[in-house]
């Protein structure tokens, strides 16, 4: 009878069916709107906080907006991802799905893909607002610079000021910074998904993610500080933390961008690879746990 054993390969079609549905699901939640709108408002408001000289004003907008994108990206990733699996289990919507010829891996990665896509779209939207803000500020500053420089007795030429302004606004390093903000949000998303495969409480998940997030930012500084410390306990501890917690400060290019430093593409690529590697490990662990999970 059994001439050939049928197989069911991994399917990106099924994965993306789950992913698209996940996007719809999260977009419909209140927290998402609130965080998104709040994030956009915060970015837009940097225009009104800034009352500095021309170039300083642009630096402030950049610093402020990149920080806002980082924080709101991470917040949406934490809250949104933490709820994905608990909601499916609580509402029992997962049963008819896994009763279909769908691999659990496809389901879990689909959930991740949907959330990841939403995060990238969110960051894209915030970037557009940010870019619009930069361009309008640039326009205004160029006009006023031209006016003041053409006044008799000006110390710097209009051209010089304009160059300074354009150097700040048309900086390709901005794209690199935003790219790494996106990668960082994906790491947070993967870690939160991993936690949700074994923790049932959403609150516990969010708190854990926040702690890991903060540790991830303090890690590099702590390592620096403990460099002189010869105590094996401290060094061992640092190693353990470095193993479990990704060095998230590496993804922060805002300082370099504001200072107008050159950011080598190589550095960006390496950091991104480090982040993707970390997220992949977290996802692999999540899949291992979810395969065995009693749903």
């Amino acid at each position, binding site marked *: *009878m*059994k001439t050939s054993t*049928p*197989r*069911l390969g991994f*399917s990106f*079609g*099924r994965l993306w*069916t*789950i992913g698209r*549905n996940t996007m*719809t*699901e999260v977009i*419909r939640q209140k927290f998402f709107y609130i965080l998104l709108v709040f994030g956009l408002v915060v970015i837009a408001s940097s225009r009104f906080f800034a009352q500095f000289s021309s170039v300083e004003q642009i630096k402030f907008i950049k610093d402020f907006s990149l920080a806002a994108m980082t924080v709101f990206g991470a917040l949406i990733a934490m809250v949104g991802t933490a709820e994905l699996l608990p909601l499916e289990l609580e*509402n*029992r*919507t997962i*049963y*008819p*799905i*896994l*009763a*279909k*010829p*769908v*691999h659990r891996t496809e389901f879990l990665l689909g959930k991740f893909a949907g959330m990841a896509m939403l995060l990238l779209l969110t960051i894209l939207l915030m970037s557009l607002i940010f870019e619009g803000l930069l361009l309008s500020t640039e326009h205004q500053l160029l006009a006023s610079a031209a006016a003041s420089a053409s006044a008799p007795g000006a110390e710097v030429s209009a051209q010089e000021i304009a160059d300074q302004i354009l150097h700040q606004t048309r900086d390709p390093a901005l794209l690199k910074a935003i790219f790494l903000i996106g990668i960082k949000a994906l790491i947070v998303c993967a870690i939160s998904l991993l936690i949700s495969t074994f923790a049932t409480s959403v609150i516990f998940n969010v708190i854990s993610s926040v702690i890991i997030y903060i540790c991830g930012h303090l890690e590099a500084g702590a390592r620096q500080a403990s460099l002189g410390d010869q105590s094996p306990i401290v060094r061992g501890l640092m190693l353990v933390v470095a193993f479990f917690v990704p060095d998230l400060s590496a993804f922060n290019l805002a300082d370099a961008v504001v200072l107008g430093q050159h950011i080598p593409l190589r550095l960006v690529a390496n950091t991104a690879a480090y982040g993707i590697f970390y997220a992949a490990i977290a996802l692999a662990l999540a899949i291992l746990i979810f395969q*065995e999970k*009693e*749903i």
Partner: protein
Amino acid sequence: MHAIATRSLTKHFRSTWRRRVVGLDHLNFAVRENEVYGLLGPNGSGKSTTLKLILGLYQPSEGEADIFGMSVERTVSRTSVGYLPENPYFYRYLTGAETVRFFGRLCGMRGRRLEEKVSELLALVGLEAHRDRRLAGYSKGMLQRIGLAQALVHEPRLLLLDEPTAGVDPIGSIEIRDLILKLRGMGKTILLCSHLLDQVQDVCDRIGILHYGKMILEGDVKGLLARKDQFQFTCEGLDDPARARVREAIRAAGGRLISEGNPATTLEHLFLQSVRSADRGKAAPSGATRPVDLPTAERP
């Protein structure tokens, strides 16, 4: 080859205080192809657990199960089975059509073929009129029917239905029973869990009764229910003297009359008749969401 076969299928749950709860206890049973098998039993007897083990949603503590000869540990075994969960919940923000489409996509269908399947299934379960309404506004009966539609989307040979009429009013429940009969007519193999016994009696070929996770009785419905030593007539148009002559004839033939009287109609029958004649009077009760055409099926 059996549609379903289980060998020593066992499931323990760990509850609070580390007490072990037996969900299913060394179950051996088989469902043949093209039969409707009723799995009965009181609440907590292990019916839903059995279905979830067969679907690989739970891992067995012991034993194993096959679908059409293939181990349920393999995801691919799910290509030939459709599942209607107990009290089904789907995404509330999707419409009826979107729900069936979603599950169709999960089964690898797309394009024209998928759209045709969606319309066909919505028609089969009688939800075309509600295809673009969100499930958040569906009644329990409508959720059960959309659940049936999604269970059928990949044309499985086997259906597992967990309490398909739980919480559904009598009319909706008869509609679902008729649907099951229709599916049986289409040649599907069906494993039906229920604790509503008279429903099962109408639909099933064979039944098994679970109690505390053990199969305590199994067999053919007709064989189990018929009392072969007794026989029943139901007559019309006999007056008193004629009845007396019948009693006399029974006695003369050596029989013993056990009971007589007016047969009671079932409450369900009475309910359906009243609702139908009330509907015939006016178009539809105000505010009613149910379509006016009620099922025409009567109890056999």
